[in-house]
């Protein structure tokens, strides 16, 4: 073991480099661990959308090892992005060394994202020069890119490496010799990488398929658009050492770079926005203050024991988990809606919405005292994840609430969460089938048998249902490849209404994208990523029924039936209503 060279693959793409990478982030991490690498650097094309998945994979592997009483895994995950430029600059892989550096990287990516249409990122080399602080840079340069290297070295002294690959394309050693000369002349160390696009050589067919989908061609016509071999996989340290026999220091350099990175994703300390708390107040105190005031108003100055007990329990839980800001933020939104003229009807739901705190804050209209609901259900101590409250608004007026959020917190602090659009069985069969040159009627037949199905695997019987023999080589191949591409991310989209709000600049935590709709921006992490990193999300949803109810209320008012709101109608004990229900 000890004589094995230390090597970390620092230029590893995942399938979040859409239609280029051919492995899930988790597969890259587990293969790197299996190969006994010192670590891995996940760097997708102009995005950090996949890094949290890698982070979760490593966390799970560590937890599993701990549970099985295995020794701790000596492995580091570092995260960054492969910067792909619009101006012909060679790709540069950037790793933040510190939390500050992470903010520089996400702001740089945000800059490129907001410049482009949805789904694209337009970066220029000059942009990078503005944001190089605390970034470690690997330049994937050619021998002819000397000028760029000098410029970058001067902009980020001591933080630039020259990426060298040995892709088995014939002239590898000659190219390496030239890069060594260039590195020596410019004082930039060479760093060994395999510029990996997938975890194992077995993924070459899948990589060819995604290449074809990207290029809009078929496997038989793709020619040299495909890679000539299966070399872009993660390679074991010993094999990398063998490949880099002419330049062993390039392999050693991977450890040097790895050790220079102190930033880990869990350093992203989330801070709730401070707006909902008046100056001079602590969040917990302020929350307790307004909730108690509302309780006295409802239950009388002398609170019933039941209420008192419930409130004490909930306040303790909120204090222990530091959720005060969360409830106050939700309260803030609800109050905004209620204060509109005319008010926007809204209604909270989700497990946390059963709490008396939510009821007293006006987030819900269901009195838990009357309905005997248990608040503590909403957070389990183990999950340590933020409580979940979805707020429905009248669908015609939700946009007012959303623009209020942008207005109150600023676009640099508020963003909608992403939804990762994955390959579904139907899209997978259609696109893979097309690449393999299967006729449309076959893919249509297969596609139609999974119509409406949200199951994520193509079971064997679906092939037989479509009248195809799963043992037929062409069909077997299709089946195999479709099975692999299922759950691959296709692109990012925005979540229907999950807002992430921060106290500091959101774009220093995660890159922001332009949404398909005007005036919408979204971040590139989805619900799972946000949960894993313990960021707070508020779901601002649109509900048509609330619009309907509001119109009913309007009618009642117009016909002299008085003013109504959700609370009154729900707390009434009209027998006829209950019977109707």
């Amino acid at each position: 073991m000890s004589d094995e060279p230390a090597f970390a693959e620092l230029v590893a793409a995942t399938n979040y480099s859409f239609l280029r990478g051919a492995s899930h982030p988790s597969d890259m991490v587990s293969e790197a661990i299996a190969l006994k690498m010192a670590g891995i650097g996940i760097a997708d094309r102009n995005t950090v959308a996949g890094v949290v998945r890698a982070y979760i994979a490593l966390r799970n592997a560590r937890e599993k090892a701990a549970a099985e009483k295995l020794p701790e895994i000596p492995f580091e995950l570092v995260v960054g992005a492969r910067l792909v430029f619009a101006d012909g600059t060679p790709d540069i892989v950037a790793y933040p060394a510190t939390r500050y550096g992470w903010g520089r990287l996400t702001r740089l990516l945000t800059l490129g994202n907001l410049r482009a249409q949805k789904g694209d990122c337009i970066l220029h080399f000059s942009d990078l020069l503005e944001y190089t602080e605390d970034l470690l840079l690997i330049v994937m340069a050619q021998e002819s890119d000397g000028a760029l290297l000098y410029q970058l070295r001067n902009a980020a002294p001591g933080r630039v490496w020259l990426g060298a690959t040995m892709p088995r394309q014939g002239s590898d050693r000659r190219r390496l010799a030239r890069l060594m000369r260039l590195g020596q002349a410019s004082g930039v160390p060479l760093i060994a990488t395999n510029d990996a696009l997938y975890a194992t050589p077995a993924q070459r067919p899948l990589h060819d398929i995604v290449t074809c989908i990207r290029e809009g061609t078929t496997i038989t016509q793709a020619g040299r658009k495909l890679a000539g071999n299966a070399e872009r996989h993660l390679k074991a340290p010993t094999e990398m050492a063998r490949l880099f026999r002419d330049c062993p220091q390039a392999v050693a350099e991977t450890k040097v770079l790895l050790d220079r990175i102190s930033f880990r994703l869990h350093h992203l300390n989330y801070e709730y926005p401070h707006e909902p708390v008046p100056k001079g107040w602590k969040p917990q105190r302020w929350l307790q203050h307004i909730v108690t005031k509302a309780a006295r108003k409802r239950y009388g100055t002398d609170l019933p024991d039941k209420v008192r007990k419930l409130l004490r329990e909930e306040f303790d839980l909120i204090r222990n988990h530091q959720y005060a800001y969360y409830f106050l933020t939700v309260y803030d939104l609800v109050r905004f809606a209620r204060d509109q003229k005319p008010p926007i009807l809204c209604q909270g739901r989700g497990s946390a919405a059963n709490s008396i705190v939510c009821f007293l804050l006006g987030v819900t209209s269901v009195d838990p005292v009357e309905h005997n609901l248990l608040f503590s259900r909403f957070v389990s101590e183990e999950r340590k994840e933020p409580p979940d409250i979805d707020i429905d608004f009248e669908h015609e007026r939700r946009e007012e609430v959303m623009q209020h959020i942008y207005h109150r917190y600023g676009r640099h602090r508020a963003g909608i969460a992403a939804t990762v659009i994955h390959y579904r069985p139907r899209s997978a069969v259609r696109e893979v089938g097309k690449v393999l040159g299967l006729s449309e009627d076959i893919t249509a037949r297969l596609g139609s048998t999974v119509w409406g199905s949200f199951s994520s695997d193509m079971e064997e019987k679906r092939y037989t249902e479509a009248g195809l023999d799963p043992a037929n080589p062409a069909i077997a191949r299709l089946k195999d490849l479709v099975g692999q591409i299922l759950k691959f991310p296709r692109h990012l989209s925005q979540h229907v209404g999950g807002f992430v709000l921060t106290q500091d600049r959101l774009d220093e935590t995660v890159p922001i994208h332009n949404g398909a709709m005007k005036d919408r921006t979204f971040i590139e992490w989805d619900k799972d990523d946000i949960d894993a990193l313990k960021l707070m999300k508020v779901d601002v949803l649109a509900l048509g029924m609330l619009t309907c109810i509001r119109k009913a209320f309007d009618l009642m008012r117009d016909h002299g039936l008085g003013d109504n709101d959700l609370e009154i109608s729900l707390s009434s004990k009209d027998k006829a209503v209950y019977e109707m229900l």
Partner: protein
Amino acid sequence: MADSSPSLSVLRRRISHIEQQRPISEGVQISTGHEAIDTAIGGGITRGCLHELFALDPDDAGSVTGFAAMLALRLGGGILWLRQETVQKVNGRLHAAGLLEIGLDPARVIVAVLPDPVSVLRAAADVVRCPDVGVAIVELWQRPAALDLTASRRLALAAEASGVTVLLLRVDAEPTPSAAQTRWAVRAAASAPLEANAPGYPTLKIELLRQRGRPAGGCWQVEWDRESAVFRPADRNADTPIRTAPPGAMVSLPRGGSDAAPSLVPLRRTG
């Protein structure tokens, strides 16, 4: 004399037509880009002539093919490459991707693979008569009986008449009397290595065995520079003649041109 006779004007038109069709005027010397070689052969490879290229050792087949392709590239025009099937079988197919690596656009080349020396020579006679062919490369295996002095003389005469340059490639063969303007032996030579001791650019040892009307001899080690399409000296001690000419006399060929009326010569020969 007025142009009253229609047949005479027809004749004139035909003559001028033939002259126009010639890509190059007779006797132009095309520099090899290598000063010493050019000097030795009086300025360059002569167009409209027969030149013989030998690979005395069959292992040098790649080198002699390369030399032919390089010369053809410098000579310009369309290339018709006639190969005897045996050559193809023994030394492999002509690989277009490899021609491209020499700098020769494969679109300029038409290849004919023919069953035996007789059919190669017959086709060659036809090709060499077509004035629009720039270079005819005729590749024969060993020493076919059909390639006698008469055959070689016929090729040379036709080449002179049409302006087509003929490169006669002889793999695994010893020279025999012929009507060639120049005769070369081509061998492989060690290349100057690139980084990481990689094999370098095409490097050949070419020897001028004979030439008509000038002293023979001379051996040069040359490297082919694809980007500028020139031969450049490969070894620093070049230009020293190594061997004298081997047996196989060069036969003199009556030169058309100066004695005969120039415009009528091609007419007689092509008609």
